[in-house]
């Protein structure tokens, strides 16, 4: 879609995947040297403009140069290494069978029949490698990776005894160790997950890519095209495409949903040509405080059509969007509920949005709205929600511009806060998506009523227990008991009914796990090891509007049920 994910652009974040498979993150700046640790160092300029998904080899540094140069390794070379060297039979447990009906593209190499060595005679002994570690180190300094590997192999006395299979494996291990290569990968959600999972999975609540995929699909998050007449801002159509999110994954969940909604990436609009795409420093088009001349009451509040009409990727026409407290967009938005004063959405910085120094041209600037639980539940107790005093225009004109700027800033801050809080409290959200450390049973009583009828609820949890307990609060039996109490005119206690069990339809709990395979001719099998840790569970349900009073179920199972007294009243779905 965007070439930003095709070629490496200056001042963007990207990943280098090292031979060990681990990811390194870096923000690439022109005219600097990238230090890739043991692999060596090379100028950033040798990556800039180059394509992602290529493997780059760090060449031997030339005497007269400050650091190494790179060689782009064509995929054909990599694949040839994998296939040719490794086209060998499986090690044991019987010969591989030749699948019938497999087209020519899948060829078993001829040596399959010949290669019948087994590992029976192989001696496992570190000393069989005739080069000492010191020698290898010495070689590393003087030789390119490929040569090292060849030398090592030549010096491995037992290599001939090994089966082709284990030789290939040995080779692969050595290659990964000594080839100074990396693959350049773009900044995207999948790579971020891999990167964080390796280091501190708890930061993102251990969420796996498969779980995140489920969450996003079931949330039904998508672009909502908000077409407005300028005076139509209150119409319900203008308000559509709003998702309420409780995210304690450092912004990963917000980022994933935002991507589905088309508001994560800043669109490259060459025609607008405003500075570099990634300039979110201090110097660029700051319109917030320098409105000296403006003396009208609303010098430049963003009632400009820009903010309202902007949808999806379309960023608002920037002239009237404030850097500090912009008027939030009405539709195609994410409302983020956070437990602390400020939300933790640090992951968004990798996508060019930093809430401390926001880029007014980034769609998140107006399409992400955040509020604290205090603001949602007790707005009157929150100082930001209290209206700052209004100063008459006559008096304002006498103020110094700095003071006037502060005044407007305060007003904007309050307006934005009030706008977000009031709109959130009104409800009508299309979806509610939760990945939080808090007990979901304490979130739902407040948040479920804010969903529109038919809206989606999705909750992710790294462990199953909180969701099991939650499912129980919405059980058929509890719902029936709840309705029976209401029918008797009694108020169900919050102790027995922390949530209104009638409001969710078909709550469902599931988990996904991907299993990775090695696919090589004659040696195809699931990977032997994988990552443990949290499985990750997802609960889904839809918000419904219950009928007043009891409703009696019906269906072809009702014959079996003799006693259709009120106790059975609500059982169907």
């Amino acid at each position: 879609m965007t070439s930003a994910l095709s070629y490496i652009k200056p001042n963007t974040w990207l990943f280098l995947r090292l031979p060990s498979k681990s990811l390194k993150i870096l923000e690439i700046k022109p005219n600097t040297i990238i230090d890739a640790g043991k692999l060596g160092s090379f100028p950033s300029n040798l990556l800039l403009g180059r394509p992602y998904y290529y493997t780059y080899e760090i060449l031997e540094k030339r005497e007269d140069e400050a650091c190494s140069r790179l060689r782009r390794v064509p995929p054909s070379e990599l694949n040839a290494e994998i296939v040719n060297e490794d086209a060998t039979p499986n090690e044991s447990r019987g010969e591989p069978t030749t699948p019938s009906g497999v087209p020519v593209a899948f060829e078993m190499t001829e040596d399959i029949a010949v290669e019948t060595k087994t590992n029976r005679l192989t001696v496992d002994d570190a000393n069989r490698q005739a080069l000492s570690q010191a020698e290898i180190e010495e070689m590393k300094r003087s030789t390119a990776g490929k040569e090292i590997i060849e030398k090592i192999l030549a010096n491995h006395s037992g290599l001939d005894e090994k089966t082709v299979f284990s030789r290939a494996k040995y080779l692969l291990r050595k290659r990964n160790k000594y080839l100074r290569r990396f693959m350049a990968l773009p900044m995207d959600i999948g790579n971020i997950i891999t990167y964080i999972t390796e280091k501190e999975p708890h930061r993102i609540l251990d969420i796996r890519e498969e779980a995140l995929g489920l969450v996003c699909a079931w949330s039904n998050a998508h672009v909502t095209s908000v077409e407005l007449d300028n005076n139509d801002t209150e119409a319900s159509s203008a308000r559509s495409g709003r998702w309420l999110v409780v995210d304690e994954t450092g912004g990963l969940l917000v980022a994933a949903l935002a991507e589905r909604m088309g508001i994560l990436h800043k669109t490259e609009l060459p025609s607008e040509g405003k500075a570099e795409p990634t300039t979110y420093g201090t110097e660029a088009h700051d319109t917030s405080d320098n409105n000296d001349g403006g003396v009208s009451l609303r010098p430049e509040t963003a009632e400009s059509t820009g903010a309202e009409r902007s949808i999806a990727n379309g960023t608002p026409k920037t002239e009237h969007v404030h850097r500090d407290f912009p008027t939030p967009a009405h539709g195609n938005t994410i409302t983020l509920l956070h437990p602390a004063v400020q939300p933790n959405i640090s992951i968004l910085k990798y996508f060019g949005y930093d809430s401390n120094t926001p880029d007014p041209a980034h769609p998140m600037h107006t399409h992400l709205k955040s509020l604290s639980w205090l603001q949602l539940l007790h707005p009157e107790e929150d100082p930001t929600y209290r209206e700052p005093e209004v100063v008459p225009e006559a008096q304002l004109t006498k103020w110094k511009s700095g003071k006037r700027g502060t005044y407007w800033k305060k007003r904007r801050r309050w307006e934005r806060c009030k706008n977000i809080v009031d709109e959130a409290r009104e409800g009508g959200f299309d979806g509610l998506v939760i990945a939080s450390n808090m007990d979901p049973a304490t979130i739902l009583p407040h948040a479920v009523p804010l969903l529109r009828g038919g809206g989606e609820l999705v909750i992710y949890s790294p462990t199953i227990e909180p969701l099991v307990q939650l499912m129980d609060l919405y059980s058929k039996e509890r719902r029936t008991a709840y309705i029976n109490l209401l029918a008797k005119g009694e108020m169900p206690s919050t102790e027995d009914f922390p949530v209104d069990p009638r409001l969710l339809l078909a709550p469902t709990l599931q988990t996904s796990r991907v299993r990775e395979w090695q696919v090589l001719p004659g040696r195809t099998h699931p990977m032997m090891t994988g990552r443990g840790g949290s499985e990750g569970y997802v609960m889904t349900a839809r918000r419904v509007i219950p009928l007043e009073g009891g409703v009696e179920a019906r269906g072809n199972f009702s014959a079996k049920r003799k006693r259709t007294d009120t106790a059975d009243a609500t059982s169907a779905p």
Partner: protein
Amino acid sequence: MEHENRVVAALEHGQPPLLSKTTTSNPFFHTSSATEEGSLTILHLRRDNLVPVTLRRTADDGYAEGAVTNTRFGSFPHSTLIGLEWGSQVRASRVDTGSRGRKGKAAKQQDASIQIDNRLPTPDPQHDISNGCHTAAEEIGQPTRSTAVDAGSGFIHLLPPTPEAWTASLDHRTQVVYTADYSYVLQRLRVRPGSRMIEAGAGSGSFTHAAARAVFSGFPEDSHVGELKQVGKVYSYEFNVSRVGTLREEISAHGMDEIVQLTFRDVCERGFLFPIGFDTTPHAEAIFLDLPKPWEALRHLTRSSTPSESALNPDVPVHLCTFSPCIEQVMATTAYLRKNGWTEIEMIEVQNHRIDVRREQVGLKNEGLRGVNASAATVEEAVARLREKGGPWRHIQSKAERLEKLRKEAEERKLYKEGNLVHRTEPEVKTHTSYLVFAVLPVDFTDGDEEACMQQWSVDDIMKVEKPPTNGVK
């Protein structure tokens, strides 16, 4: 010959989509504030029993109430379903299913909207009731429509359509890709709003709907889309004529004509380009292949120095997923990919299961109750019962008396919060759907491109031996 070409083109593309504003009312991407006449609505009967229905005011089939959908949870005149808040629970109505006349047969063929009937194996509503649902919605005006009367029992919920609900409601024209798989596939393929993707074969259209939602970035006629932004699109292919027909109708009915372009074609033979027409190539950046021999289709998915001759977007890395049930297919596919410059080749399977949660009631006090385990819950309970049995009071209470007493007590008990809260995998699990092969085809990067980069990003200065600032890797 030329005639033949035109015939092929006409067959492949079907009717050109009507470029009317109605396409913006796409029920999947924009939910109206309430159910309306003509709304595609998912009737939620119970979990895993969803029925898509287009709401109509009028119908024939002699129901005095107008259009009526019959389910095993009762009958639902559409007049009771229109104008409600989405998500509403609706009671069944008393509908006289026996005495209605069968009229208006002639008008049937005319009506394009009898979608629901198409989906049913048997057209007779009397039989359909047992296997789900039937809608009698055909003809025009029923001047003396009577108001529906509450049936006293039975209800359903009205849901706005989503790809997930649509997938769950599909009858099985073909094997379909379910949410657990497609959610992962779309995530991995990096499909985003504005993406252009290829899908083959379309089959029942389960994946198609999810992909359409993922690429959707606005309608071409929306003013903001303009030239600034690429409009997301799914280029879908299918070589079974009746599946093409059904899916095309659904795509149109769902307002997705401009988002999904379904082509009737054998892609292994004829590839993905469009010889005739305005847009001759999909210029795709993501590919999903769910057909028996993906490697044969892949022959047509290569880069070319002439961009118009490639189905792929020349400027982006192309992400691929093939979906094959058998390991032999996987091996053939990966062998092909390795020979043809693809990278990041990986094979995985998605294992998904749902989990039941319930309260397990164990204990003697549950004797005689339904769905419980009435054995002793604890050693103490067992011992107490043994004492009772062996002790001098054993004749005091008969079994019947005991059960009656327990039943009375149970009415006062809060069973919903007693017992052990347990969870287990649902009884039926899909243990294998398919193997998913993923791969990436990087952009072509020529020596010329490299030279241009060397010019733009010179390293002459930095290579001089005194140290410039380092760009640390974290």
